C-alpha cells in the first residue's frame, strides 16, 4: 500500500512556505514508522518530518524545493 508523506498542517505557525533542507535517508531505502526522514526550514526555524508508516521511501520533493503545509514530499510503499 502506498502512503504519502505530506507536510503536517500543524508543523509550524501561520501559512508561510518552507524549504526542504535535508533528506536524512536515501531514496529507495526502507524506513520505520516514526523515523526522522527530512528537515524543513521556515523563516530560519527548522522542523522535523517523520515517517507516518513503515515502508520503502520514494522522494518527490528534493532538497532546496519549496513546500507548503499539505504538500506531498514523498511516498512510502509498505
Amino acid at each position, binding site marked *: 500500500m502506498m502512503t504519502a508523506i505530506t507536510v503536517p498542517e500543524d508543523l509550524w505557525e501561520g501559512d508561510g512556505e518552507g*524549504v526542504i*533542507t*535535508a*533528506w*536524512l*535517508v*536515501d531514496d*529507495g*531505502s*526502507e*524506513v*520505520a514508522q516514526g*523515523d526522522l526522514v527530512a*528537515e524543513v*526550514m521556515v523563516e*530560519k526555524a*527548522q522542523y522535523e518530518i517523520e515517517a507516518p508508516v513503515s515502508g*520503502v*521511501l520514494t522522494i518527490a520533493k528534493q*532538497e*532546496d524545493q519549496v513546500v507548503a503545509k499539505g504538500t506531498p514530499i514523498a511516498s512510502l510503499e509498505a
Partner: protein
Amino acid sequence: MTTTTATRKLTIARAMAEATAQAMREDPAVFVMGEDVGPLGGVFGNTRGLHDEFGGERVRNTPISETAFIGAAVGAASDGMRPIVELMFVDFFGVCMDAIYNLMAKNTYFSGGRVRVPMVLMTSTGGGYSDAGQHSQCLYATFAHLPGMKVVVPSNAHDAKGLMTAAIRDDNPVVFMYHKALQGMGWLGTEKGATVPVSEEAYSVEIGKAAVAREGRDLTLVSLGAGVHHCLRAAKALEAEGFDAEVVDLRSLVPLDRETVRASVAKTGRLIVVDEDYHSFGVSGEIIASVVEHDHRLKAAPARVAYPDIPIPFAPTMEQWALPNADKIVAAFHQMLRND
C-alpha cells in the same frame, strides 16, 4: 527497484548534538554553555535537544559576555569539569581572546602540567550568505597559529561526530570550528555533501589525522571544512578533462598531519591548497611550506585558492566573487599546466 535498509544520515548540526548528548550521558562533568544554546538549540542547530534532555543546569544559556562565560569555562575545566562552550561567531574572538589564549591555552603549561584544561570551544566559521565582515570569517590560521590548543575543522557529519567525541574526551583544550554552510541550516547555503551516514553508537575520529577524500594521481588538492566540497567538485570537473585529482581533507589543523599531505604530493607532484581563510600568513602558506621544505622536486610551483586579503563584502555579488569555488580551483590547475 532495489531496496536498501535505511542508512541514517545526519547533518553536521545533528552530529555535533548527538556526540554531545552521548558524552553528557556517560560523564556528568560534561556541560554546555553559550548564547542561545538552551531551548533554542543553538542558532546553528548544534545543541538541539540537549536542553530538553539535560535541563538548564547542564545546558546553560549565557548573556552576551564572552569574556565572562569563556573565562568561567576555563575555571570549571581547571577544576575538573569538562565544559563545552560556544563562541557563536568566531569573528568575535577579539572580545574574549585573553580567556582563550592567555588562560585556556596556557594554564597547563604555566602550572607545570598540574592543571588540565579539558574544554571544547566550539565556534562557527565561514560566509557565503551575505552576513558581512564580522560574521563570515574563518580565522583558521589565527587559532592554529597559537600554541597550546588543538584545532579541528570537520567537513562532514561523520567526522563532526567523531571529532566532537574526541574533543570532549581530550584532556587538552580543543577549538572545534564548524563551517556554517555545512550545518544543514537552509538559510546559510547548505552543502549537501556534508550530510552523510553516521553511526548511532559513540565513536571518535582521531584528532591530528587527515583523510584522503578522493584518490588521484595527477594533482593534490588540500583543503578543510567547506573547501573540501569545492575540491571534490573541481576534481569531478578535472576528471572530465582527463586529469585525476586527489583531495586531502585536513580535518585537524593542530596537530597538522603533514605526513598525509607530503605523501600525496610525493605521488602527484602538484599541489593546490584551497582555504576560505585569508590568503596571506595562513593555512595555505603553511601547507605549501610544509611540502616544499621537505621535498622541492615538484612538477609545478604550488598554488593556492584562498580568500583575498580584504574585509568580507556584504553585497552578494562581491562576496561570491571573493569566495573560493570549484571554477577557481580548475583555473588554478590550468594555469599550473601553462606554467609547466
